[in-house]
């Protein structure tokens, strides 16, 4: 089992979600987050006072998947989330030890 964490542009989220549904991904956890990598923020001016806003809004998708699906999902996210500009985000993969479904205590890939 692998966990995919993808941080993407909010404007791409709907397309990514639809594309993932098309390849049969049924579950995900989505969080509205703020952050920045190499992308610089912007400045706002209120009555002459300038503020640099460097934490920008992003969407974080989290999914835990059976190993067999991971590559397809990564490819799909890469294809749909990319705009080609700085600020498109990142995908992180990590191994997951165990998964347990709370309702019936199923374990492992069956719980996904």
């Amino acid at each position: 089992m692998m966990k995919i964490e993808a941080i993407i542009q909010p404007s791409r989220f709907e397309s990514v979600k639809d594309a993932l549904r098309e390849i049969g991904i049924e579950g995900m956890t989505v969080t509205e987050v703020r952050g920045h990598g190499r992308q610089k923020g912007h400045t706002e001016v209120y009555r002459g006072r300038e503020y640099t806003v460097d934490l920008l809004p992003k969407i974080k998708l989290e999914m835990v998947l059976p190993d067999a699906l991971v590559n397809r999902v990564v490819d799909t996210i890469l294809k749909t989330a990319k705009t080609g500009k700085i600020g498109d985000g990142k995908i992180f993969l990590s191994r997951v030890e165990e998964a347990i479904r709370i309702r019936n205590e199923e374990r492992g890939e069956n719980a996904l």
Partner: protein
Amino acid sequence: MKCVGWKCSLSFVLVLGAFLLTVAPLSAQQTAASSAAPLTIVASAATSEIPRAVNEKLAQLDKDVKAAQSSADNAWMLVSALLVLMMTGPGLALFYGGLVRRKNTLAIMMQSFALMALITVMWALVGYSLCFGGDGHFIGSFEHAFLRGVGADPNPDYAGTIPQLTFMVYQLMFAIITPALITGATAERMKFSGTVLFLALWFLVVYAPLAHMVWGKGGFLNASLGGKFPTLDFAGGTVVHISSGVSALVCALYLGKRTGYPKQPMPPHSLVLSFIGACLLWVGWFGFNAGSALASNSLATSAFVATHFAAAAAALSWSAAEWFKNGRASALGAISGAVAGLVAITPAAGFVGPMPALAIGLIAGVVCYWMVTKVKAIFGYDDALDAFGVHGAGGTIGALLTGVFAQQVINPIFGAGKAVGALDGHWGQVGNQLVGVLIAWVFALVGTLVLLKIVDLLTGIRVPEEHEIEGLDITQHGEEAYNLES
């Protein structure tokens, strides 16, 4: 229309009869030689019956005309009163509420609302009397304490065609918004208890005397009721805006900066709220300025037009200055400009024509922009929502420009045909305005400083730093503006 057909013809006949009666003796003398006889017959036939009926009818007509005028004036003045109340709540409450950070929204709105209640009660007990009772030079009297003698009859010194109760409640709305303006400078760090006590005392010690000096009978600065230095202040440039704006500056200096200012960003939490608030202020201001004609007459229209034009011009000039400086025109800039223009036209509204109103607006927009973006940064005071930069500065410019642009064709306040402002050739009025401005400045400055010291000893002025960080909504009022997850 009360005058239905037959009544009209009857009164016409009666008036004609009366006319003939007054003219008859004269004509009789002039034409005595040629045709005296027929006229004397007319006169003698009419002497006993018609005069009494005519006089009664004329008296009745006179009464009807007065009642009709009173109804019209009263309707406009009641609407004006509610427009001015609307400027405080929700107008100013939304305008300021949007400009603070989210954690202080309810606190700043509550300060405006608390004043709506508190000043109203104080006004009924002594406030109205201290502003408009008696004929002292510096403050009113207790003549109308507990609203004694304030009823349906007009007070001819101030507004001869509307019930004094209407005049009283209209003036009350000014007394509410003026201290509320100060909360823009003390925002996000002043204790609620200290705010309420300070503003209540401020109303008695600063507002009431100043209102009496400028608007009250016999007041030192009154322009039409026997003042030493006749200062033109149509709707409150000195009484409302300089007094609150200068006091706001003193408060900002006394309180000190907000924790983290100016390093930490403190952007407005909702310019949408501020936008709605500013638009309500603009509309409400017609009651403030055009209502200050105290009648539904052509002067009210003149003030209405001047008010609107100045607001528009200032919105444009502030936006243009900003566009020139930052390459963009912001919504906050446009609404701030409109408010600055409305402030500046307030003393001038009933004295200037439309073109001078545009000029006053254009000047005020640029000067206030410069005050809040440059001057504030240079001196480093934390006038959180720019109560001084907009009201203090805008009020001062407006008061001085009133002396320049006031014209007797708009408002012959010094008597028919007498020059009013510099445009009429009366440059001395600019001097009078300067005296009024200086007195208002010094009075507000000293009064506020003394009161802040007293209140600081009694209740304390500033919240502890941890309360400031947590936000005044929770620490002062035990509630939050936005419980979006509930």
